[in-house]
């Protein structure tokens, strides 16, 4: 992982000496001027929230979480009464400590403590449709008012574990981004963000059978350029990725439900049960009936 961040601006991120979770159902409209941010997660516990990150508007609904990186700017404009924003900012040292210990192990950290080693976490900076992260943030809101024994300890561990998952995702994203044949790191990052946003969108809308044009529009790219870039990043075409995604979803449905093959085809957006069965067997080596819940 590169040890740089914030290459486009000279913004100095604020230092947080602890984790901070802000969550409140607004009793009146709320605004906050643009200010520098450190690493955090933005979401809406209920309703729909608009966060402006680096000047761009991001609408977040349930199950959507925006990962904001250090050195970015955050503003809140006209958040309406009744909306329930939730913002979790991590202890400023935690991201690098987690990254460092995952990379080198705890013992090295003791021998070779770092002082000025900011890793680049910006590969995750976008909206993630992730019910798991969303549920974790909601559980932290509950823990804040909990009378459970050792609630603070639970919260600390939950945040640490959440961030470990994010660090691994960031590492994976970084590896994928390195497949992009671009000279400048900033260009690579920008292309990667657009492609991964389209991939996330595809994962949320796979049932409707999104077209190449739909995906390219989400990525704000020309469709041929998008196709080329997607293949570079993930070593697979968007169409192949979509088929694979549908087959994995079908396998989950077979394992966890009692739906018929036709129902499953319909649920995942496959028109032909025959071609589904052929592709399924090719992908998993066994017919769909083998995975049926007994």
């Amino acid at each position, binding site marked *: 992982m590169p040890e740089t961040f914030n290459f486009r601006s000279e913004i100095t991120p604020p230092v947080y000496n*602890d984790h901070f979770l802000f969550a409140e159902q607004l009793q009146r409209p709320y605004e906050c001027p643009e200010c520098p941010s450190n690493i955090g997660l933005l979401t809406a516990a209920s309703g729909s929230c608009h966060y402006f990150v680096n000047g761009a508007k991001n609408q977040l609904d349930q199950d959507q979480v925006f990962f904001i990186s250090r050195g970015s700017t955050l503003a809140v404009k006209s958040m309406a009464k009744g909306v329930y924003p939730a913002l979790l900012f991590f202890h400023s040292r935690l991201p690098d400590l987690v990254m460092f210990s995952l990379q080198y192990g705890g013992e090295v950290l003791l021998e070779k403590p770092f002082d000025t080693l900011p890793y680049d976490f910006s590969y995750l900076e976008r909206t993630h449709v992730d019910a798991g992260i969303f549920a974790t943030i909601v559980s932290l809101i509950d823990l804040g008012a*909990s*009378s*459970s024994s*050792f609630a603070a*300890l*639970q919260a600390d561990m939950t945040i640490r574990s959440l961030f470990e998952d994010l660090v691994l995702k960031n590492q994976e994203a970084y590896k994928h981004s390195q497949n992009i044949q671009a000279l400048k790191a900033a260009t690579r990052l920008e292309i990667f963000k657009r492609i991964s946003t389209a991939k996330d969108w595809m994962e949320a809308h796979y049932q409707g059978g999104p077209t190449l044009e739909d995906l390219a529009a989400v990525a704000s790219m020309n469709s041929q350029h998008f196709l080329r870039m997607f293949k570079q990043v993930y070593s697979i075409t968007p169409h192949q990725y979509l088929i694979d995604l549908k087959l994995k979803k079908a396998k989950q449905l077979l394992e966890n439900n009692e739906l018929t093959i036709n129902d499953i085809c319909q649920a995942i957006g496959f028109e032909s049960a025959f071609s589904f069965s052929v592709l399924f067997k090719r992908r998993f080596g066994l017919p769909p009936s083998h995975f049926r819940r007994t």
Partner: protein
Amino acid sequence: MAQEFDLSKFTEFKLRVNVNTSIENAYRAWASSAGVGSWFLRATYKDQDGKPRSGDELAQEGDEYALAFTTRPDMVICTGKVLKANGRDLFSFSFSKGCPVTISIYREQDETIIQLIESHLPTDEETIRRHFIGDTKGWIFYLTNLKSVLEGGLDLRNKNAELKSVITQ
């Protein structure tokens, strides 16, 4: 007249509970995963090679441990290291914020006393609020449960995984 807080008093706290049991039993309740699991949380002790110790095996200095909810074994809430284990009456481990918790077991007035000291706590306002107060509350319940389990077998912990925000978990 308003009294100023002496922050140095928040660096550690001590709790004592009298339990009608032997020193050996009380030690096992802390130093073995089966013992810890009977009154506190699901515990795993691993030796310095990373090998999990069996349920009744006593943890040794340098072991690592993980604690999880009994109702949700996948939810690890604390990991740390065994700092001292003399095999008889002294057991210490790192706990919240890495601060040491030291258990001393001794006799007093013909009873077995289990003494817990959580020390080296930072004295910033947030740590005091979350860890000094939070951990004291947590340990009071669990030490009460330890007494109950060792004396009569009644386990006061919440067993309903769907029930949240109760002091019994």
